[in-house]
């Protein structure tokens, strides 16, 4: 009986330690990301959604603390998924009150990562749950799966380059749930060119993907509020 009690106490102690570890880890990651007050970057955006056929777009990305993010195609038409606000980890990490839960470990592209779940404590937050895959050595989030109230679940993968000190990625892959698209034939008067129709309802993969490759970051040099309108 004594042995059992001791075992339970040790187990609890371990859990408490692990909990403290992940909280510390998230704090360190947060501190790293908080070095960025604002940034402006150029990028190339590839959209891969079954029913959207668009060229690779040149976009500008603007960010300003605490949670303003705007992706703009200044010379053309691009469809930006609404949840792209979450491509910036600051938006997840900037939540004031949240719980951190350890959720195991994994290896992403050869890098060992610790998985943590972040649960906001306040009902007002749009984020319901965020699962972060953190490179503990470099204190970088390599992947996140965020479920929001308004815009569903988003999976984001990040690769880092020269701005990893600020936690700013060189490439972001953004995956989201897409909805079907259909217009009445009588409106479109389509020409049947014999090409296979991309009927969303019959498609197996209904996930949409957006990939942004960043270049020319300008960090903490000030971004005007007007660009977010």
């Amino acid at each position, binding site marked *: 009986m004594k042995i059992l009690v001791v075992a339970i106490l040790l187990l609890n102690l371990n859990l408490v330690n692990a909990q403290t570890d992940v909280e510390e880890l998230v704090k360190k990651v947060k501190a790293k990301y908080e070095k960025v007050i604002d940034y402006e970057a150029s990028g190339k955006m590839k959209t891969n959604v079954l029913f959207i056929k668009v060229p690779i777009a040149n976009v500008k990305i603007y960010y300003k603390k605490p949670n303003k993010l705007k992706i703009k195609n200044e010379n053309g038409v691009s469809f930006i998924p609404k949840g792209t606000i979450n491509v910036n980890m600051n938006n997840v990490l900037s939540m004031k009150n949240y719980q951190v839960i350890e959720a195991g470990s994994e290896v992403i592209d050869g890098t060992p990562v610790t998985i943590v779940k972040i649960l906001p404590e306040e009902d007002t937050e749009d984020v319901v749950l965020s699962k972060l895959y953190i490179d503990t050595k470099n204190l970088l989030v390599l992947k996140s799966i965020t479920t929001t109230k308004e815009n569903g679940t988003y999976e984001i993968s990040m690769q880092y380059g020269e701005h990893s000190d600020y936690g700013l990625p060189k490439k972001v892959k953004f995956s989201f749930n*897409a909805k079907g698209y*259909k217009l009445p*034939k009588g409106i479109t*008067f389509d*020409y*049947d060119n014999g090409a296979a129709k991309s009927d969303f309802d019959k498609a197996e993969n209904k996930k949409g993907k957006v990939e942004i490759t960043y270049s020319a970051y300008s960090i903490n040099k000030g971004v005007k509020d007007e660009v977010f309108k």
Partner: protein
Amino acid sequence: MFFTLLKIELFKISKRPRTYIAFGALAVLIFLIQLALKANGDEFVGLLLSAQEDTFEIPRKEMLNGYFVCFFVLNMLLIHIPLLVALIAGDQISGEAGMGTLRFMIGKPISRTQIILAKYCASVIYIVLMLFWMAILGLFLSNILFGTSDLFIGRQFDVIVLEASDIMWRYLLAFLFATLGLSVIAALAIMFSVFSDNSIGPIVTATTVVIVCTIIQQLTVPLFENTITPWLFTTHMLGWKGFFYPETYQMVGENSGAVIKGSIENISAIYKSSAILFGYILLFLGIAIWQFRKKDILT
């Protein structure tokens, strides 16, 4: 001799008041479309993508530009313009037969085949001028009024965005293809015109045929879709749109899903449509020449 005949035919067309009805009607229609889109274009564009507004930010302002307006104009008007073409071409033989000038014409040392061909060529030149007028108002004026940006096209199952620098050549080819498509209507109207001695009959008949074909084409009934629809000239007249359907990279790979600049999704379909439209022109003109050569002009 043929060119003299053609000049005369063009002169006759230019002297008919109804010739200018088409130009006036086009100007009014395009102006009304531009006015409507200027006033409520945002809502219209939003309507095309209303189901996606929860998922994507819809760049309505950028989508509503001159190229989009021109595509909208062509999409609406190229279905109705055949009526304007029939108005001129349907009168070519029957009008002269009705007025009694046909017998004077045939009395000259020119073949009846040449007369038909000259009248047909004059109608085609009229179509070219009409489409040029459409291009000025629908494309160039719209670009001035709405500005230019990427072109958004909504199809039944997908949307396409073409880069602004990848559009003008497509419009050029689209207008050329539209000329071919409308030339079928001219041949059809001339064919009916040969069988009649008054102008109204051939114009109404040609128009009716176009309307019936368009309705059949729009009926999504397998009975028609698998049999008649693929062979209707109205089906292939939509071939101008094929120039705006680009090829995309495979859904898997480096640039997966992205539009390939300067590409056409299925050029062979456009060749096939062109061949079918040429076939119709030859058929209608062949019947017209055959009938006209044995037409009794003395009664």
